[in-house]
């Protein structure tokens, strides 16, 4: 994925958070998901205004882990969420 790609949440997905756990319920598939604190943070950052590069940088700043590991984990999470259609590629500004 191009680091300049911006992602946004599927607005149809129901979501809630308690303590460090965020749950997602997808009415289209009937599936539900549990995200830990870090995955939930990435989910929150996918608001259509930030690109993947911004999200990776934010996570690298917030968590004490190897930058390469953070980037790998963030990208894998985003790819999974895209495959599950919980996230979508946001339209470019002006589109």
């Amino acid at each position: 994925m191009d680091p300049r790609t911006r992602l946004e949440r599927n607005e149809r997905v129901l979501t809630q958070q308690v303590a460090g756990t965020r749950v997602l319920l997808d009415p289209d598939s009937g599936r539900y998901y549990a995200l830990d604190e870090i995955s939930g943070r990435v989910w929150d950052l996918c608001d259509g205004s930030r690109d993947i590069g911004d999200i990776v940088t934010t996570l690298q700043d917030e968590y004490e882990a190897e930058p390469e590991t953070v980037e790998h984990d963030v990208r894998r999470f985003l790819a999974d969420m895209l495959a599950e259609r919980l996230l979508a590629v946001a339209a470019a500004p002006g589109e």
Partner: protein
Amino acid sequence: MSAWREAAAALAGRLEGLPPDGPPPHDLKFELRLAAGAAEHALPRPAAGRPVYEPPAGEVLYDPDADLLFLELGPRLRALCAPGRGRATVSALDPGPEELWLLSHPLFTLPLAELAKRRGLFPVHAGGVARGGRALLLAGASGSGKSTLALALLRSGLDFLGDDTLFLTRGAAGLRLHAFPDEVDLTDATVAFFPELHPLLAAPLPAGWRKRRLRAERFYGAAVAWECAPAVLVLPRVVPGSESRLAPIDPGEALVELVANVLLTDPVSSQAHLDALAELAAASRCYRLETGSDLDGAVRRLRPLLD
């Protein structure tokens, strides 16, 4: 007894513990049709329906455009529910004894849960007991042991909310829990744990009935705690051996277990249902309980949680 009378009696048995002048909503209408032939049984299956629940046999669909919930549990039983309009129609084609339980339980409870959800009464699959207006919930799927534990706690002197389904509301008074003191359905294995219930085993099970029925609050002389504050949330499961083990868990972990309560129908009330469940987890002290065969030991672990 005619099929109609048997179906009505089965439903009345479930609902007789509810007060006739109970709290709102009062605008719900259930219609039970006993169809004489296929033409009368023809409740329409919504063309745009998507599965929202997987029953052991049949299907449960929701059509978001028409706002209709459709249930088909075998060839003889159907229901069509219009949650927004407060209406549910159940159709039974020449029901035999084997259909009576389905007719009086899932075919009634699923539409009821959806109708209630639209009106701000959010169902939670849980048993519940209370003391001093504070409730301990036993949340879990069928087979998790919640009825057995609810009965054991009831016997120890706590107030009763129900053994299977309770309702949450959110308002100025915060999150409130509402009782639904249904008939308790007991397997023979559960009855075996309670010597005082052994006389139930002497009678043959009615045709089509897999469990013994008990009005538990009446049998044990317990008060019904109609409305109270949630305080403790326990997620039980049955384990081999006699000893029970209780362990605190993070409320987020409890929420993950509760999300299966949300029927993914209309988005607004489904999100509100999820919000109520999250508030329940956040407002409660949460535990997992591995329940062994020594029920008195399990009660000794659970009762102090309400002190």
